[in-house]
């Protein structure tokens, strides 16, 4: 019984993770400028990754395995945040302008 519940929860979480990953990817492809693309990637993918890790976490056999999963998650989140920051910074310094609606452009 408890196994069934746990498996069900895992499936739900994985599906959720997949949804956010898909959303992030669509954002990366469809958004108009570098800033918003980074936004889509980091935010959505972090949630997606979080849900996926959570899905595996409840399946973990040992505490060690669980800790490893958490560590992976933490590293991935901080790394992606750092990289996003670097990219945005670089773009900013190189004078890449953020996208505006045509009517808002000066």
């Amino acid at each position, binding site marked *: 019984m408890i*196994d069934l519940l*746990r*498996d069900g929860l*895992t*499936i739900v979480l994985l599906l959720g993770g997949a949804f956010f990953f898909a959303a992030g990817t669509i954002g990366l492809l469809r958004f108009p400028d570098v800033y918003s693309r980074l936004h889509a990637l980091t935010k959505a993918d972090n949630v997606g990754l979080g849900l996926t890790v959570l899905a*595996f976490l409840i*399946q973990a*056999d040992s505490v060690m395995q669980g800790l490893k999963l958490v560590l992976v998650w933490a*590293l991935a989140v*901080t*790394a992606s*945040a*750092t990289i996003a*920051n*670097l990219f945005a*910074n670089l773009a900013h*310094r190189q004078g890449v302008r953020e996208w505006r609606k045509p009517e808002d452009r000066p």
Partner: protein
Amino acid sequence: MSTLAMSTLAMSPLATTAFDGMLAVLIAWTAWQSVTSREVFRAVMLFVVFGLLLALAWLRLGAPDVALAEAAVGAGLTGVLFLESLGHLRRNKTVEPPETVAQSRLRRWAVGLPVVVAGGLLAMVALRLEPRVPGIAGLVVRHQGETGVSNPVTAVLLDFRSTDTLLEVVVLLLAVIATYGLVPHGPAHHGPRVRPPATPRPPRQPVLVWFVRRLAPLALLVGVYLWWVGSSAPGGAFQAAAVVAAVFALLRVSGMEAAPPPNARPMRLLMVAGSVAFVSQGLAMLAAGRVFLDLPETVAYGLIVSLEGVLAASLAACLIALVAGAPRPPRQSGERP
């Protein structure tokens, strides 16, 4: 693990084949793209992706050791080297002579056609390949006990075929020697005359610095772990060294480099330590009345693990020196600073 998790990990044969096929196509595609890409930055990025995909492929082939090395060296360190070169090119505004379309097309054909033909033939041969004699895997497992280590890869690398490994260690040292040879300079005792290499100092990136500060010790720990675990599980000196060198590269790009000047004698000593230790160990066996590199069963484990420790440190030093590049030539007396 539960049944569901098991079933997701152990994929059906169809899914496996599909995954492998996809991986193969992706590898070929990224390789082609990174070679033909007109934009160098894009090519470098594709190359890094290619390296990671390759690491995946090694995993799929059941070679986690190779996968680790590929990821760390092929994708990581090489990527860093390429990016640095790219930055160098942009700073020095070196522009390639424009190639006409006809030239580039000709070159593509000249390179592409033989590759495709050879690849096709190779595929034909590979598909029809029937091993007539089994490989040495069975033998390795049978004799593994006599080496003291339980990771078959380590048994092959540091015992059965240690000659090859010795020579590969020397190859890395040689790469450093050759790189240093690009700039004629005196030996270490002329050290003070040699300026340490100029490190790129990008504007401070607080987020990056924060991240690297936390990551570096962790990665270093991973390096030590990889060395230690090498005797029983995937890992070992090469992988450990690659990870440690990657830490250095990370420190370097984040402007926090604190490495000793590569020309200093301690650094050079560390770089040669691996090769010297390996050769000396081999000769010591000879002196003990055995064959060159022949480790006695009773102490094999200790010798292998300690040698791998020295190798890890030494190889890391070599890789770091390669990333840092050749030291600047000594300033000529007449030259103004």
